[in-house]
């Protein structure tokens, strides 16, 4: 029974990974990737790394939804209603992919790996916890600080307020007037500036919101 589930999930993982880049609808591409992660998560649970598999599922649900939201934001064609292919250096990348696959699969088949199965699968989670808070506490703390730095950095980069005003206005200091005089109004308060800021406001909020959401992951 476990073998059947394993083979089904194995085939599903590879097929859905392939379909990610063949899908016309971008939201479907994001969720094909999610399906690939679900398959890998189930395989992880079958391997005995129960906690890891479930946490992978938990993480990827949020992450793939954010990817779908970003797809809709950035792609010309998020629903795939007008199919078009946007690839560059196609043959090179196919060759690179095949070389990567051949190399890794070659190592997998020809390499000799020790055969030491996990001895106490029921204690895997407890052992992970003990390891994280015991011997590898430094790794744990560093990962925590790295995630904090990521959150702050992502918010700082994606936030919609620049130093001098709105993000598309204020990332550079205000320019000089025509005769070299300093500007009479602050950047972002000019009439045209305001109009443009208002026009971009929806997109900035959207993008800022998306940046906030992605920065608050995990």
């Amino acid at each position, binding site marked *: *029974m*476990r073998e059947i589930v394993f083979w089904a999930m194995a085939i599903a993982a590879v097929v859905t990974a392939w379909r990610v880049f063949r899908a016309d*609808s971008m*939201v*479907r591409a994001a*969720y094909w990737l*999610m399906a690939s992660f679900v398959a890998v998560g*189930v395989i992880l*649970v*079958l*391997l*005995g790394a*129960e*906690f890891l598999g*479930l*946490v992978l*599922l*938990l993480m990827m*649900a*949020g992450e*793939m*939804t*954010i990817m*779908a*939201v970003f797809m809709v934001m950035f792609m010309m064609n998020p*629903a795939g*209603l007008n199919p078009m292919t946007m690839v560059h250096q196609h043959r090179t990348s196919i060759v690179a992919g095949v070389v990567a696959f051949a190399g890794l699969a070659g190592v997998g088949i020809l390499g000799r790996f020790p055969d030491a*199965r*996990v001895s106490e*699968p*029921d*204690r895997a*989670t*407890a052992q992970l916890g003990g390891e994280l808070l015991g011997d590898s506490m430094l790794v744990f703390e560093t990962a925590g600080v790295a995630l904090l730095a990521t959150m702050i950095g992502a918010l700082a980069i994606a936030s919609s307020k620049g130093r001098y005003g709105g993000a598309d206005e204020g990332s550079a200091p205000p320019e000089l007037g025509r005769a070299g005089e300093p500007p009479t109004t602050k950047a972002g308060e000019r009439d045209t500036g305001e109009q443009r800021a208002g026009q971009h406001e929806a997109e900035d909020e959207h993008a800022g*919101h998306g940046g906030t*959401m992605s920065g*608050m992951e995990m």
Partner: protein
Amino acid sequence: MGSVTGSPGSSIAPIAAAVTVLLLLGIGIYAVAVLDRLVGRAVAREPLRLRAVLIAPVREAALLLMQQRISTERPDAQLWAFAPALLGALAAAGLAVVPASGGSGMTGSIPGMSAGIVYFGAAMAIVMVAVFLQGWAANSVLPLIGGYRFVAQALSYEMPLALVLIAAALPAQSLSVVEIVRSQHAVWNVVRQPLGLPLYLIAASGLAFWGPLNFPDGADLVGGTAAELSGAPLLFWKAARTAVLVAAAAMGAAAFLDGWWGPFIPGPLWMALKTLALLVIIILAGHLLDRVRLERFVVVSWVVLIPVALVDVFLSGLVALWTGGQGGGP
């Protein structure tokens, strides 16, 4: 999904388990529909009319099944059919780890899944995917807005939900829901973790987008993600969403109200009573409170609820260390 060693001869048990879980979900959905009407009538101070209320969900279901099914122009048909099915499957998956009695899972065929709480958390995280797909697939504006609102809401309640369940797991020194229930036999979690149950109820009503947190299907979006649904798909969507509420309430009863434990009547009946109690609280909140604004809920969730949940985890850890912890095993 058991341990690496698996368990031979358990091929018939999963089918029985699935059927039992679906039956329980069906009963739960009917119970929520009846309770919703009863509580609504009580709050509005109308006569209760028990017989009419008991028949009403069946009538509504029959009406929806007979209704004509209207579709939109160029929807994503496969995703549109997939989303309610996914939501229902997640509710069933979430309910399956909740123990009904002193055995292991709901029917004993998920033998001692050692990370039941995380499994529940993962199932409830994928609910975000299901509701977003439901909003996306209709190729229509209002469902899309509803789907986006649910993404914002889901990211906001997910952290308090996970943290509060972790706090409930701390005294048990185990992630298994069975162990969590066993660790409460002396003192219920609702007593020794007073912040836990209110936070969990808020997160649960956000999870099933019920009442004050009904952003994706709200009336200001004319039904939101359900706006373009009619007929049988609308019935399945409402049923799936109610099923998620039932699963969340059942897990709340297990994690905070000590599941099947109780003096005179058998375990599963206590479990049902405690689940119904939590359901009544959530439904009452749904009838008494207005739907809040999404921006305000997001801000409150990130700024207030997550720190409160962290305080809850900290206090729960302190109490667990102080009393030396109960239960045992991984």
